[in-house]
């Protein structure tokens, strides 16, 4: 306690202080006072209901903010983790040779090492005698033919980040989509064309003369990089010549049909 006369000498609010200090001390109702005293002494204080429940002391706002942010971060982390699609897996290949992943040569038979090395965005070149299958379970499967060079796309996320982009520098890439691909978008670019894939099975053949896209199922849209897109129906193909602006359409290549059917059927177990 303090001597306020001494401390307040410089406040300069004498009228206000006079009015404040002039208030009559509030007196409680005698009945309330007596009842509370009786309850306090007997230990039954609080048994009597209050007019309004008084909430317990709240945590400091900073703790509330911190816990809120932590919870939000945990939820965001959980959602991001759950959104992750299955990673790319290399399936055993019967061929011999190597796969060059980001400049590192790996024997094609070492599927475990291949699976460990390949990531979305990896540049892959297949130097083998047979095809190599890469699978993101339930979402997307790709088959690279010998000599194909491409940049691997990220498999589309479960709820967001559902657009993906792959690049085929040269060679033949077959693609089939799975049940969990539904609603996602995949764009495959070649030196001459862009292919937009939505739930389909198709082959993208990138050659020096141009790009040919054969669609077995579903629909794809194909066009030159700066030109109009052409819708390619099941069983047909679309060719974009090197430097050309007008795609040409026709029946799909006979050689591709059994290969695409084989890919689709083999992948059925892991894609649906």
């Amino acid at each position, binding site marked *: 306690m303090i001597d306020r006369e001494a401390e307040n000498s410089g406040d300069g*609010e004498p009228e206000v202080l006079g009015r404040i200090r002039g208030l009559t001390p509030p007196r409680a109702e005698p009945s309330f006072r007596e009842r509370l005293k009786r309850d*306090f*002494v007997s230990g039954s*204080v609080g048994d009597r209901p209050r007019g309004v429940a008084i909430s317990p002391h709240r945590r400091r706002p900073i703790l509330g903010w911190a816990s809120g942010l932590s919870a939000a971060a945990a939820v965001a982390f959980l959602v991001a983790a759950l959104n992750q699609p299955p990673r790319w897996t290399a399936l055993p290949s019967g061929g011999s040779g190597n796969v060059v992943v980001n400049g590192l040569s790996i024997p094609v038979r070492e599927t475990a090492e291949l699976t460990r090395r390949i990531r979305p965005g990896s540049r892959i070149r297949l130097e083998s005698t047979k095809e190599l299958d890469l699978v993101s379970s339930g979402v997307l499967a790709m088959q690279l033919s010998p000599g194909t060079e491409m940049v691997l796309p990220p498999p589309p996320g479960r709820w967001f980040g559902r657009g993906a982009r792959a690049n085929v520098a040269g060679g033949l890439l077959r693609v089939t989509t799975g049940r969990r691909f539904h609603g996602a978008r995949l764009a495959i670019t070649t030196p001459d064309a862009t292919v937009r894939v939505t739930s389909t099975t198709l082959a993208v053949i990138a050659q020096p003369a141009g790009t040919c896209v054969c669609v077995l199922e579903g629909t794809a849209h194909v066009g030159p990089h700066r030109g109009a897109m052409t819708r390619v129906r099941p069983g047909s193909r679309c060719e974009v010549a090197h430097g050309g602006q007008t795609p040409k359409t026709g029946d799909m290549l006979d050689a591709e049909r059994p290969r695409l059917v084989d890919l689709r059927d083999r992948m059925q177990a892991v894609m649906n």
Partner: protein
Amino acid sequence: MTSSIRDRTQTAVPSVVVLEAVRRREPQALAAFFEQHFDRVYGLVYRLLGDRHWAEDATQEVFLKLHRAAHTLDPDRDPGAWVTTIAYNVCRDLWRSGAYRLSRQSISIDDPDHGDGAIPSNREDPEGELIAAEREKLVQDAIGRLPESLRAAVVLREYQGFSYEEIASVTGTTPVAARKRYSRALAELGKLLESTIK
């Protein structure tokens, strides 16, 4: 004037023996403890809450907490600051409650219960009695219209006789901030009471 205020905020420090008995919750010691602190607690919560019903609820809550925490009482120290801190925390919880905010929004300035709990008993001068009661009501209303942090500063200092250090300890701030709040509270009250002072 000020000396009388200071007198009423100062309570005799109870003996260690009594406080030890309070810790053991002996009825006689609890009764003495109650008598010693009731007016101070009620006066504080009434000034902070500005309403008799809320003050009664808060006072009951304070003594409930005191009873529950009696065993933690330090008999070697004046329990006044401890009691005041508990009372202030109860008021702070009330300020944050939806029920209190709602009731404050619905209180009318003409509410006959929304004034000082004390009615002057000077029956020989009813006109003076009315004027004094009205002036007190205006001051209490002005205190009630202050932001809670400023209200706490002015109430703790003027009606509890606390130093800035003690105010800072109770309200969880620094002595400098407590001094600033007190100064701002006086300035605000000066504005609110401007017409009645002149």
